[in-house]
Structures are given as structure tokens and as C-alpha cells.
């Protein structure tokens, strides 16, 4: 478990990052990099092959949707644990 602290409104907040949290954030980062590359490819073929570019962009949109899902789940989990701690 890794710890980071910060002061929010003069209260010390301690954030705990487990290996799982780091893995999760790393996966998001990797997916974003991969989707960025795909988009870059779509832009590079936009003039020569617009249909192919469009298809690729649709893939990127769908990839972003897939990426949003685990983030949403994580936020919901955090929200639940916060309610429990109150």
C-alpha cells in the first residue's frame, strides 16, 4: 500500500494507493495511449481513405466507451466506501 497526503481546506487527507489502484490507473493510461495512436492513424488516412478513417474513428469512440465503464464502476465503489465511512 502506498500513501500520499494532501491538505484540503486545512484538513489532512491521506490517500492510499494499493497495487490494484496503480494497476487500474496504468491500464487506463495505456488504453488512452493506444486509442490516441489509433486516432492518429485515422487522421493520417482521412484524405486518402475517408471510409477507412471513419471506421477507425468509430472504433475509437467505442473504445472510449469501453474505457469509461471501469472508471464509472471505480467511482461508484469509491462513492459507496465514502458513504460507509460517514
Amino acid at each position: 500500500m502506498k500513501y500520499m497526503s494532501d491538505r484540503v481546506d486545512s484538513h489532512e487527507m491521506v490517500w492510499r494507493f494499493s497495487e490494484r489502484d496503480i494497476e487500474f490507473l496504468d491500464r487506463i493510461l495505456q488504453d488512452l495511449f493506444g486509442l490516441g495512436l489509433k486516432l492518429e492513424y485515422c487522421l493520417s488516412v482521412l484524405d486518402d481513405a475517408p471510409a477507412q478513417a471513419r471506421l477507425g474513428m468509430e472504433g475509437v469512440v467505442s473504445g472510449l466507451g469501453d474505457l469509461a465503464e471501469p472508471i464509472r464502476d471505480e467511482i461508484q465503489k469509491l462513492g459507496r466506501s465514502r458513504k460507509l465511512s460517514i
Partner: protein
Amino acid sequence: MPENVIRVMLVDDHEVVREGLKALLNRREGMTVVGEAGSVAQSVEVAVSVKPDVVVMDLRLPDGSGIEACREIRSELPGTKVIMLTSYADEEAVMSSILGGAAAYLLKQTRGSQLAEAIEGVARGESLLDPAVTMRVLEEVRKSAAGKSKLASPEAQLTENEQKILHLISEGKTNREIAAEIFLSDKTVKNYVSNILSKLNMKRRSEAAAYIARRTSQGSEGSYSKG
């Protein structure tokens, strides 16, 4: 395939990254992706079979580190160049990559077109460091220069974390105990241990422990810190 086409191999456990890189690099004139892998073991196997000119290697792989894979590929195929492509500008990783024979160290914030240019440069025999990591490397080099006498001992080539882990090995601790003490996963510690043994040119951890015991009895323990 024309002779001057650069044959590239991609090593990354994230399929979406491999797909993006493959699409971009295959579109580039004079470049083709000839192989892919998602783990250290697979990367060595595929590299030996396809003999690429350049390998684009992720640093973190499920069964070990890309540095280990780089070292193995370079020992099997000395003519193959390896580019480390990672999300983190960690100075230990940069130094280990350079010592492991990597020709370039780039961050996953580089655009695909810049990566393609880097591949071309490396294939021509150039070396390249991402501007974001250059500063860190220069600092490490300055530190090494300042402590030149330390370079005489074999453990001077170990990073700070590796030295810490070596000390814990010499205390007879298991990977699990070491992992708990320094807040890392068992897998990460295992990778560190294999890097340490490789750098010290040893096969077993007992040899490393005996080595430290010898150094301690000779009164030279001060050359590394437990920290």
C-alpha cells in the same frame, strides 16, 4: 520485401497499444511490423524467429520487465536494436535500460509519427532519449561521476532499490518478506532479484548473500546503504 525496409517487432501486453502502433507503422513507407508479443518469454521466442531490425518494447510486462527481455534479445540477436517505450520517466529504469543495451528510451506521450522517426534513427545506428528523461539521466551520470570510487565495487552498478533488496537478501529474507518490507509486490521483488543476480553475474541468491557477508567481514559494507 525490399531490402531497405525496416522490420519492426512490437512488445506490449496492451492489445490496444499494439493495434495502434501496428496501424501507424505499417502505413509508414519503408517500415513493416513483422512480429508481436505480450510477454518477456514470448518476445524472446518471436524475436529469435522473425529477427527484427528494431524492437519497440514496453517496460512493464506481465511476466517480468522489458529490460530483462531487451537483455535477452540483444544477447541472442546483437544486431537488433531495442527501443524502450514506457509511460514513466523513472531514472532507475532509464539507467537499467541503457545498461541493458536499449538504443532509445521514449515515453508513451510521444506521437506515433515521432516514434516512427525514432525507429528510423535507431535503425540507422542512432541513440535517442526522450527529452523528458534526459535531465534525469544527466543527474545520474553526474552522481556516478561524483562517486567514482564506488564504481570499483560490483554493487555500484546496482540501483538504490536493488542495493536495498540485496541487503535484505543477505539477511536471509524471502521475496515475500522483502516485498512486505519495502511495499512492493512479490512479482516486482522477483524481477529486482533477477536483475541483481544478472548484474552481479551470479546464479543463486545464496551466492549474493555470501558475497555481502564477505564484503561485510572485509569492512566494506559502507559502500551501499540500507536506507
